[in-house]
């Protein structure tokens, strides 16, 4: 089923929960609403679910406006961070509850509950109470309950946030796989950008009730349209710092005290000559050379902190008053205080106007 949000707005008095959200979700698409706490993603989700009535705008399922349709008539399944299992019902009754409300015949109900439970790998737990299950098992039950009535839209409200890190990885791929197999249009609310990046076909980044961007994960990563997106998407986060962009003969340079990055002309053109620009470089786009080599390009700094991540070392390099995070080869022996030289990949540098907070490359 296709979902369309048209200038959707929710206000309580002068508090705005969601502000003019417009986006469309293709049938079978997996869309993530990404943003920090209080950015309006859950508000938007609850409007789609029919729990909140929109203050303005419309919600369309396929071509039908559903603003006035009660949640029970929207044929949606929903999974919560708290699992929201009915504590007084067994797993069987929990999963079967949507069918019971549809007044499905008992035999059919039994069959479908068993099938969904088997699919979720909890077929042997049907007679337990939710309190007797682990977090992961509870989340599977919740998923089973959302799926059992074969909804045309699945809503996830931070479903993995209460699980431990390892289980989160497993469930992440399971949910993704399940969604692909079943082809159910899905909206997935999360504040975890890794979850959004790995699972979603498209990500709607939200901040303070507003939709900041709506794009596939790699586009968000490669072409952040605002400073907020640049800083929010990606782990470890992008380094953002003030520079001046100057033209020196043929060359275009981004400079800040002792730091210098050569920019390709097509990238830096719009920024050229501006006094204040915010540059963004991802930690993996900076190379780190130990020692105090003579070249004037890049920047000279010293190691402030080394955080071993296993595959890489995340190195905090201090250049005067600026701290930059750099991903380095863990085989490089680095100690705190070691002098290092940084080289920047000019083709990967993002440039933003500090006034408008918009990208000077993609807007």
């Amino acid at each position, binding site marked *: 089923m296709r979902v369309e949000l048209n200038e959707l707005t929710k206000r309580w008095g002068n508090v705005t929960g969601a502000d003019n959200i417009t986006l469309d979700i293709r049938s079978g698409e997996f869309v993530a609403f990404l943003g920090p706490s209080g950015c309006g993603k859950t508000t938007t989700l*609850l409007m789609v*679910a*029919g*729990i909140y009535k929109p203050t303005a705008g419309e919600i369309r399922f396929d071509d039908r406006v559903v603003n006035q349709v*009660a*949640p*029970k008539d*929207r044929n*949606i*399944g*929903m999974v*919560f*961070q*708290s699992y*929201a299992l*009915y*504590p*007084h*019902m067994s797993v069987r009754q929990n999963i079967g*509850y*949507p069918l019971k*409300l*549809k007044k499905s015949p008992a035999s059919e109900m039994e069959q479908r509950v068993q099938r969904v439970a088997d699919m979720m790998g909890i077929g042997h737990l049907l007679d337990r*109470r939710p*309190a*007797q*299950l*682990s977090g*992961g*098992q509870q989340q599977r039950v919740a998923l089973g*309950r959302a799926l059992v*009535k074969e909804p045309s839209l699945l*809503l996830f409200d931070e479903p993995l946030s209460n699980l431990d890190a390892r*289980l989160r990885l497993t469930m992440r791929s399971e949910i993704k796989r399940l969604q692909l197999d079943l082809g159910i249009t899905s909206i997935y609310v999360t504040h975890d950008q890794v979850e959004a990046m790995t699972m979603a076909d498209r990500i709607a980044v939200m901040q303070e009730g507003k939709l900041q961007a709506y794009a596939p994960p790699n586009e968000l990563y490669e072409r952040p349209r605002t400073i907020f997106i640049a800083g929010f998407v990606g782990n470890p986060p992008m380094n953002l710092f003030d520079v001046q962009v100057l033209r020196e003969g043929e060359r275009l340079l981004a400079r800040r005290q002792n730091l210098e990055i050569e920019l390709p002309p097509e990238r830096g053109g719009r920024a050229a000559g501006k006094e204040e620009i915010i540059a963004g470089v991802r930690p993996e786009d900076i190379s780190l050379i130990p020692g105090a080599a003579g070249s004037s390009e890049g920047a000279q700094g010293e190691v402030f902190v080394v955080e071993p991540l296993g595959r890489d070392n995340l190195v905090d390099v201090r250049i005067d008053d600026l701290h930059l995070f750099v991903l380095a080869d863990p085989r490089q022996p680095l100690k705190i205080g070691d002098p290092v030289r940084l080289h920047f990949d000019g083709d990967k540098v993002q440039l933003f106007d500090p006034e408008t907070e918009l990208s000077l490359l993609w807007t």
Partner: protein
Amino acid sequence: MSTNLTESATQPLGAGRGRWLLLAAGLVLVGCFILPWLSFVITADQRVALSLTGLQAATIGLVETTDGGLLYRSSFWLFLAPLAGVVGLALGALNLFPGRSAPWQGLLALFISVASAVAVWGAFAASQEVAQKEKVAVEAQWGLSVAFIALLLLLVGALILLREASSQKPAFRAALDALNFMTPGTVLVIVFFFLPAIILFILSLTDLSSANFSEPWTYVGFDNYKRMFSDRFFPKILRNTFQYVALTLLFFNVGLALLLALLTAHVSRRVGFLFRLLWLLPRITPSVVYIVMWQRIAQQPPYGILNQFLGWLGVENQPYWIPEAPWVFVVLVNGFVGASFGMIIFTSAIEAIPADLIIAAKVDGAGDLALIRDITLPLLRWPLLFVVTYQTLSLLVSFEYILLLTNGGPGLFTTEVWALTAYKRALQTYFGSNQWAYGAAWGFVLVLIGAILSVIYLRVFRFNDLVQEPKIDVL
């Protein structure tokens, strides 16, 4: 397992000082209390008592009367006290042999202490009376100090045993800790429930009334109870009580309360709050004022509000409604007060239901009625149990509104409930002849009914099921 066995075999509990102290204290008890008591019972000769110490005399309840004879005062609990001592001692002695588990040793030692304390208490109370008679005064004091020393020994012995026990068994120590946490509640229940109930029971076995309160009480056994059960209005009162409790509970204290809570929880918070506030008014109105208001409502025209309305509707010659339909008013008057309690409890319980559960149910396809039926009400099981139990008990013992409204009438026993009868017999009879003991019998049976009902409720609501089982963390 095997190491545990060897440990307990080589170091039996009570092997140290505790065991000998208990034994010594037990012997003193036997000497002071048991033997004379037995000899008295066996010979049944009151003169034997003359040769006993004052303490012993006190224990068996002998008091010298003014005319020189001995009055056999059968304050039965004075008999119970040494009896409890014997039982405690016997049980304790069993466990003075090695090989018993630590908790039992400690608990039995405690039991002995408590039993002895009861014995000494009884003896003390009686010996106060005895001590007033010259002949035995000195001896009574002496016997009392012996008993106190014995008690002290017992307590020290019990404490040592408990300490040894808790050092041996961590589980037992944990149990002791748990008991410690319950101490404040336990003390309150004992002081304000068990002791009054026991005193009530003791009172009910005597003939104490305003006609004879200046004379010593006489133990009359269960005469008061026989009299109560053979009262020709007893079945009527029983039926009335059941009717009163059941109707008020069902329609108001639970039914209306639940309805109000559900309604006020589904409107805006402020409106709901105001509405609930209104329903609290009957509860905070003084009883007499409240009843006068109801009487005004039910008055004959032109005073009664109800009859004024009926008059406008063209219904003429309306009576004073309370004697016409006394039961309707008894239930209404109590129910309007009673509903607010459950309403508040249910409201807070409804508001405590996680919002996610409600959202989940709505998304799952539940309409308002299904939501209430399948989610809200099942999750209110604990508050429901609490309100039903609590309100049953408070309705059982409540009578002041009935007293003020109908005083059990109109006519004979039409709306008289159990608690009202107890009150009238004990404290409100004509000519000031209050039958305290007889009223106590009514009261005590009511206490028993309440206790039994509570147990039944806990069973029916399967209280244990409400305690969450531990999580099994497997995935």
